[in-house]
């Protein structure tokens, strides 16, 4: 995969916070290159990214700490370029080059 936006791939950064980084090799920031379209030819969206993260980036086999029933598990906020993903269409959001996607688990301690 290329490292520039050549039309065939989309390069984005993916961040994990609030303890989720533990599932991804204790690394907070990942550079990710995705195909610009999925296998059916549709533009790559958040559903694709979440599946990609589970199969390619997650080091920890406890997938259910990240995804439950094929959706992000309750208690995780998803931010697209620092805005709640509900403002952007959630799973249907089509990824753009240089997007930053942040997954952060909500905390309850004090």
């Amino acid at each position: 995969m290329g490292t520039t936006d050549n039309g065939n791939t989309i390069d984005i950064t993916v961040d994990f916070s609030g303890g989720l980084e533990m599932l991804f090799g204790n690394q907070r920031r990942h550079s990710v290159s995705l195909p610009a379209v999925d296998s059916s030819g549709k533009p790559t969206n958040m559903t694709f990214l979440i599946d990609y993260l589970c199969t390619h980036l997650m080091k920890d086999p406890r997938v259910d700490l990240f995804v439950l029933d094929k959706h992000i598990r309750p208690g995780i906020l998803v931010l697209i370029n620092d805005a709640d993903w509900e403002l952007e269409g959630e799973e249907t959001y089509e990824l753009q080059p240089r997007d930053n996607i942040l997954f952060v688990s909500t905390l309850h301690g004090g």
Partner: protein
Amino acid sequence: MVVPGMGKYGQLRLINSSVLIIGAGGLGCPAAQYIAGAGIGTIGIMDGDVVEPSNLHRQVAHATSRIGMPKVDSLITHLRFLNPLPTYMAYPFHLTPQNGADIMSRYDLILDCTDNPATRYLISDFCVLLQKPLVSAASVQKSGQLIVLNCPPSPQGVFDRPCAPCYRCCFRKPPPPSADLSCGEAGIMGPVVGMMGVAQAGEAIKILASGLHLPPERRSSDGGSETDTERNLTQPTLLIYSYDLASAVGPYTFRALKMGGRRRNCFACGEGSTLTLEGIRAGEPDYAQFCGALMPPPTAALTPEERITAAAYDEARRKGELPPHVLLDIREREHFSFGGIDGAVNVPFGKLLMNAAKIKRDGGEAEEVLPPEARGNGRDTPIFVSWG
């Protein structure tokens, strides 16, 4: 505390206002110090716990000499030394669906300094129904979060203008209990939770001094509308603080995240919400069940005969009464680093879970859940497990 924008009228508003701090722990202690220092007229503190030695590294208003005292009394003792002038109200018990409305209704603003999801949803629901602004913070291990909710407050179900969200609007569902960590078991850095508590006080002072807790007609206008993006009220910012032990403060240490406004389908503040004070008092909704606290108790996997105390183990081992065996210490690496029983092999419980999940996913033999050095000489080697 005279700074640009904070003059006589701001100070007068603070003197005439009241704040309820729910939770007198790692968030509540630092928050209360600055709330008291700001000269807020009435300060209520609610917490049902007593001071414990393991609290002191982060719960900075308590003291070694007050171990065993209700946290509420210990904190108020400390606050009176800082500032004797405010009226301090002590509530030495936990918030419940039954006691919440009566107490919270007496205050202008609520600080959520608690430590569990069920109480956080309960506090937010009361704030919606009583129309109180809520300054909510949380912290675990090396992360902190802060958000101002319900500010300015507006009645349930109002959508003819942009309204601020409640806790449920932003955090629709709690995590499954297995994914949530409490400070006691997960650990917490004192400065991280302290920073979030201090920030809560800062937000509270700002709201009260500018009268944002009051309905618009009782607030002196300073120009600008509530929907100004700079004021962030109806689409608040979630501040997250990530503390990295391995690096200096960096560009992502603090992040400001834009949240949505009030949600039409919110259970508490949305259209057609059925949430009422009477309902909450009567047990509807069931907060413990919503947050999974009513999970069936784990079945005991070991019989009493299969258990051994550390002292009995030590004695049996010294007398040579034990067969060749493996001693497994399943505490986290950091705990083990302080010391363990001679000869113990450290395989943290989290690592065991990961190995088990990997075998389930990729296949493999059950004994591969243990690394080779912890398997002894085959399947029949007894294993003693130490977790205390």
